[in-house]
Protein backbone atom coordinates (compact mmCIF):
# COMPACT_ATOMS: atom_id res chain seq x y z
CA UNK A 1 0.00 0.00 0.00
CA UNK A 2 1.10 3.55 -0.68
CA UNK A 3 3.18 4.62 2.38
CA UNK A 4 1.20 7.83 2.79
CA UNK A 5 -1.99 5.80 2.95
CA UNK A 6 -0.81 3.14 5.41
CA UNK A 7 -0.99 5.39 8.47
CA UNK A 8 -4.26 6.92 7.31
CA UNK A 9 -6.16 3.77 6.44
CA UNK A 10 -8.63 3.85 9.32
CA UNK A 11 -12.35 4.74 9.45
CA UNK A 12 -12.00 8.15 11.10
CA UNK A 13 -9.69 9.33 8.36
CA UNK A 14 -11.92 8.16 5.49
CA UNK A 15 -14.88 9.76 7.21
CA UNK A 16 -13.00 13.06 7.34
CA UNK A 17 -11.96 12.86 3.71
CA UNK A 18 -15.48 12.04 2.49
CA UNK A 19 -16.90 14.86 4.59
CA UNK A 20 -14.41 17.42 3.33
CA UNK A 21 -14.53 16.42 -0.35
CA UNK A 22 -18.33 16.21 -0.38
CA UNK A 23 -18.48 19.61 1.30
CA UNK A 24 -16.20 21.18 -1.29
CA UNK A 25 -18.16 19.69 -4.20
CA UNK A 26 -21.50 20.78 -2.71
CA UNK A 27 -20.11 24.28 -2.11
CA UNK A 28 -19.14 24.48 -5.78
CA UNK A 29 -22.53 23.11 -6.88
CA UNK A 30 -24.75 25.43 -4.80
CA UNK A 31 -24.22 28.72 -6.70
CA UNK A 32 -25.07 26.94 -9.94
CA UNK A 33 -28.12 25.33 -8.33
CA UNK A 34 -29.39 28.68 -7.05
CA UNK A 35 -28.73 30.39 -10.37
CA UNK A 36 -30.72 27.81 -12.31
CA UNK A 37 -33.66 28.08 -9.92
CA UNK A 38 -33.44 31.86 -10.18
CA UNK A 39 -34.19 31.52 -13.87
CA UNK A 40 -37.76 30.83 -12.80
CA UNK A 41 -38.00 34.50 -11.89
CA UNK A 42 -37.89 36.03 -15.30
CA UNK A 43 -36.53 33.56 -17.80
CA UNK A 44 -39.02 30.72 -17.74
CA UNK A 45 -38.10 29.71 -21.28
CA UNK A 46 -34.46 29.21 -20.34
CA UNK A 47 -35.46 27.28 -17.24
CA UNK A 48 -37.62 24.98 -19.35
CA UNK A 49 -34.79 24.39 -21.78
CA UNK A 50 -32.45 23.63 -18.91
CA UNK A 51 -34.91 21.23 -17.32
CA UNK A 52 -35.30 19.40 -20.63
CA UNK A 53 -31.51 19.04 -20.65
CA UNK A 54 -31.65 17.44 -17.21
CA UNK A 55 -33.81 14.66 -18.59
CA UNK A 56 -30.75 13.03 -20.17
CA UNK A 57 -29.51 9.83 -18.46
CA UNK A 58 -26.04 11.25 -17.77
CA UNK A 59 -27.49 14.30 -16.04
CA UNK A 60 -29.88 12.09 -14.08
CA UNK A 61 -26.86 10.12 -12.90
CA UNK A 62 -25.17 13.38 -11.92
CA UNK A 63 -28.23 14.34 -9.90
CA UNK A 64 -28.04 11.03 -8.11
CA UNK A 65 -24.37 11.73 -7.42
CA UNK A 66 -25.31 15.05 -5.86
CA UNK A 67 -27.89 13.36 -3.65
CA UNK A 68 -25.18 10.90 -2.59
CA UNK A 69 -22.82 13.78 -1.78
CA UNK A 70 -25.50 15.53 0.24
CA UNK A 71 -26.44 12.35 2.09
CA UNK A 72 -22.77 11.58 2.83
CA UNK A 73 -22.06 15.10 4.08
CA UNK A 74 -25.26 15.08 6.14
CA UNK A 75 -24.67 11.72 7.87
CA UNK A 76 -20.99 12.53 8.36
CA UNK A 77 -22.01 15.82 9.91
CA UNK A 78 -24.37 14.11 12.35
CA UNK A 79 -21.48 11.84 13.31
CA UNK A 80 -19.30 14.90 14.01
CA UNK A 81 -22.00 16.45 16.17
CA UNK A 82 -22.03 13.23 18.23
CA UNK A 83 -18.21 13.17 18.47
CA UNK A 84 -18.00 16.80 19.52
CA UNK A 85 -20.97 17.13 21.85
CA UNK A 86 -21.37 13.77 23.57
CA UNK A 87 -18.73 12.42 25.99
CA UNK A 88 -16.39 9.99 24.21
CA UNK A 89 -17.40 6.37 24.19
CA UNK A 90 -15.80 3.36 22.47
CA UNK A 91 -18.84 2.81 20.26
CA UNK A 92 -18.21 6.18 18.63
CA UNK A 93 -15.57 4.38 16.58
CA UNK A 94 -18.36 2.58 14.75
CA UNK A 95 -20.12 5.77 13.70
CA UNK A 96 -18.19 6.17 10.47
CA UNK A 97 -19.58 2.86 9.22
CA UNK A 98 -23.09 3.81 10.34
CA UNK A 99 -22.87 7.15 8.54
CA UNK A 100 -21.65 5.48 5.36
CA UNK A 101 -24.44 2.92 5.54
CA UNK A 102 -27.21 5.45 6.09
CA UNK A 103 -25.99 7.69 3.27
CA UNK A 104 -26.00 4.75 0.87
CA UNK A 105 -29.55 3.91 1.93
CA UNK A 106 -30.64 7.49 1.27
CA UNK A 107 -28.95 7.53 -2.12
CA UNK A 108 -30.55 4.19 -2.96
CA UNK A 109 -33.95 5.54 -1.95
CA UNK A 110 -33.50 8.37 -4.43
CA UNK A 111 -32.33 6.01 -7.16
CA UNK A 112 -35.24 3.63 -6.62
CA UNK A 113 -37.70 6.49 -6.64
CA UNK A 114 -36.88 7.12 -10.28
Amino acid at each position, binding site marked *: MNPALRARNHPGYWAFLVHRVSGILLALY*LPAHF*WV*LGLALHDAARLDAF*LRWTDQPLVRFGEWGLVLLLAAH*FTGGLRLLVL*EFLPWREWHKGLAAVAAGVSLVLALAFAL*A*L
Partner: protein
Amino acid sequence: MSARREALLWAAQRASAALLALCVMVHLATMIYAVHSGLGAAQILERTRGNAAWLGFYSVFLLAVVVHVPIGLRAVLAEWLGWRGASRDWLLAAFAAALAWLGARAILGVFL
Protein backbone atom coordinates in the same frame (compact mmCIF):
# COMPACT_ATOMS: atom_id res chain seq x y z
CA MET B 1 -8.70 37.93 19.35
CA SER B 2 -8.20 34.62 17.61
CA ALA B 3 -9.52 32.44 20.42
CA ARG B 4 -12.86 34.21 20.75
CA ARG B 5 -13.37 34.51 16.98
CA GLU B 6 -12.57 30.86 16.35
CA ALA B 7 -14.80 29.73 19.22
CA LEU B 8 -17.75 31.75 17.88
CA LEU B 9 -17.19 30.53 14.31
CA TRP B 10 -17.06 26.96 15.60
CA ALA B 11 -20.32 27.50 17.50
CA ALA B 12 -22.00 29.08 14.45
CA GLN B 13 -20.84 26.19 12.26
CA ARG B 14 -22.28 23.54 14.60
CA ALA B 15 -25.52 25.46 15.17
CA SER B 16 -26.05 25.89 11.42
CA ALA B 17 -25.13 22.21 10.97
CA ALA B 18 -27.84 21.13 13.41
CA LEU B 19 -30.38 23.34 11.62
CA LEU B 20 -29.24 22.04 8.24
CA ALA B 21 -29.63 18.46 9.45
CA LEU B 22 -33.36 19.12 9.80
CA CYS B 23 -33.60 21.12 6.57
CA VAL B 24 -31.70 18.51 4.56
CA MET B 25 -33.94 15.72 5.83
CA VAL B 26 -36.99 17.64 4.66
CA HIS B 27 -35.31 18.57 1.37
CA LEU B 28 -34.22 14.99 0.60
CA ALA B 29 -37.65 13.64 1.47
CA THR B 30 -39.27 16.25 -0.77
CA MET B 31 -36.93 15.49 -3.67
CA ILE B 32 -37.50 11.74 -3.34
CA TYR B 33 -41.25 12.33 -3.22
CA ALA B 34 -41.19 14.66 -6.24
CA VAL B 35 -39.13 12.26 -8.33
CA HIS B 36 -41.18 9.27 -7.23
CA SER B 37 -44.42 11.03 -8.16
CA GLY B 38 -42.97 11.90 -11.52
CA LEU B 39 -43.58 15.60 -10.99
CA GLY B 40 -42.32 17.83 -13.74
CA ALA B 41 -41.09 21.38 -13.31
CA ALA B 42 -44.43 22.95 -14.12
CA GLN B 43 -46.25 20.80 -11.58
CA ILE B 44 -43.67 21.52 -8.88
CA LEU B 45 -43.90 25.25 -9.50
CA GLU B 46 -47.69 25.03 -9.29
CA ARG B 47 -47.34 23.70 -5.75
CA THR B 48 -44.56 26.05 -4.65
CA ARG B 49 -45.67 29.40 -6.06
CA GLY B 50 -47.48 31.50 -3.48
CA ASN B 51 -46.79 28.94 -0.76
CA ALA B 52 -45.81 30.92 2.34
CA ALA B 53 -44.86 27.85 4.38
CA TRP B 54 -42.33 26.59 1.82
CA LEU B 55 -41.07 30.14 1.33
CA GLY B 56 -40.43 30.41 5.05
CA PHE B 57 -38.80 26.99 5.22
CA TYR B 58 -36.40 27.62 2.36
CA SER B 59 -35.52 31.07 3.69
CA VAL B 60 -34.38 29.46 6.94
CA PHE B 61 -32.57 26.79 4.92
CA LEU B 62 -30.78 29.49 2.90
CA LEU B 63 -29.72 31.36 6.03
CA ALA B 64 -28.20 28.21 7.50
CA VAL B 65 -26.40 27.47 4.20
CA VAL B 66 -24.97 31.00 3.98
CA VAL B 67 -23.47 30.60 7.48
CA HIS B 68 -22.33 27.00 7.10
CA VAL B 69 -20.66 26.87 3.65
CA PRO B 70 -18.14 29.73 3.98
CA ILE B 71 -17.04 28.68 7.48
CA GLY B 72 -16.54 25.17 6.16
CA LEU B 73 -14.46 26.38 3.20
CA ARG B 74 -12.37 28.54 5.54
CA ALA B 75 -10.56 25.53 7.00
CA VAL B 76 -10.05 23.97 3.57
CA LEU B 77 -8.46 27.15 2.18
CA ALA B 78 -6.15 27.40 5.18
CA GLU B 79 -5.04 23.79 5.31
CA TRP B 80 -4.97 22.75 1.66
CA LEU B 81 -4.10 26.02 -0.06
CA GLY B 82 -2.13 27.61 2.78
CA TRP B 83 -4.36 30.66 2.56
CA ARG B 84 -4.82 32.32 5.94
CA GLY B 85 -5.54 35.84 7.14
CA ALA B 86 -7.81 38.73 6.31
CA SER B 87 -7.85 38.36 2.50
CA ARG B 88 -9.19 34.83 2.77
CA ASP B 89 -11.93 35.98 5.16
CA TRP B 90 -12.91 38.84 2.84
CA LEU B 91 -13.24 36.44 -0.08
CA LEU B 92 -15.41 34.14 2.00
CA ALA B 93 -17.60 37.05 3.07
CA ALA B 94 -18.04 37.96 -0.60
CA PHE B 95 -18.86 34.33 -1.40
CA ALA B 96 -21.44 34.32 1.40
CA ALA B 97 -23.00 37.47 -0.01
CA ALA B 98 -23.10 35.94 -3.49
CA LEU B 99 -24.73 32.77 -2.15
CA ALA B 100 -27.29 34.83 -0.26
CA TRP B 101 -28.08 36.90 -3.35
CA LEU B 102 -28.40 33.92 -5.70
CA GLY B 103 -30.35 31.98 -3.08
CA ALA B 104 -32.79 34.83 -2.52
CA ARG B 105 -33.43 35.06 -6.27
CA ALA B 106 -34.02 31.31 -6.38
CA ILE B 107 -36.49 31.48 -3.51
CA LEU B 108 -38.33 34.38 -5.09
CA GLY B 109 -38.43 32.61 -8.42
CA VAL B 110 -39.79 29.37 -7.03
CA PHE B 111 -41.98 30.40 -4.11
CA LEU B 112 -43.29 33.86 -4.75
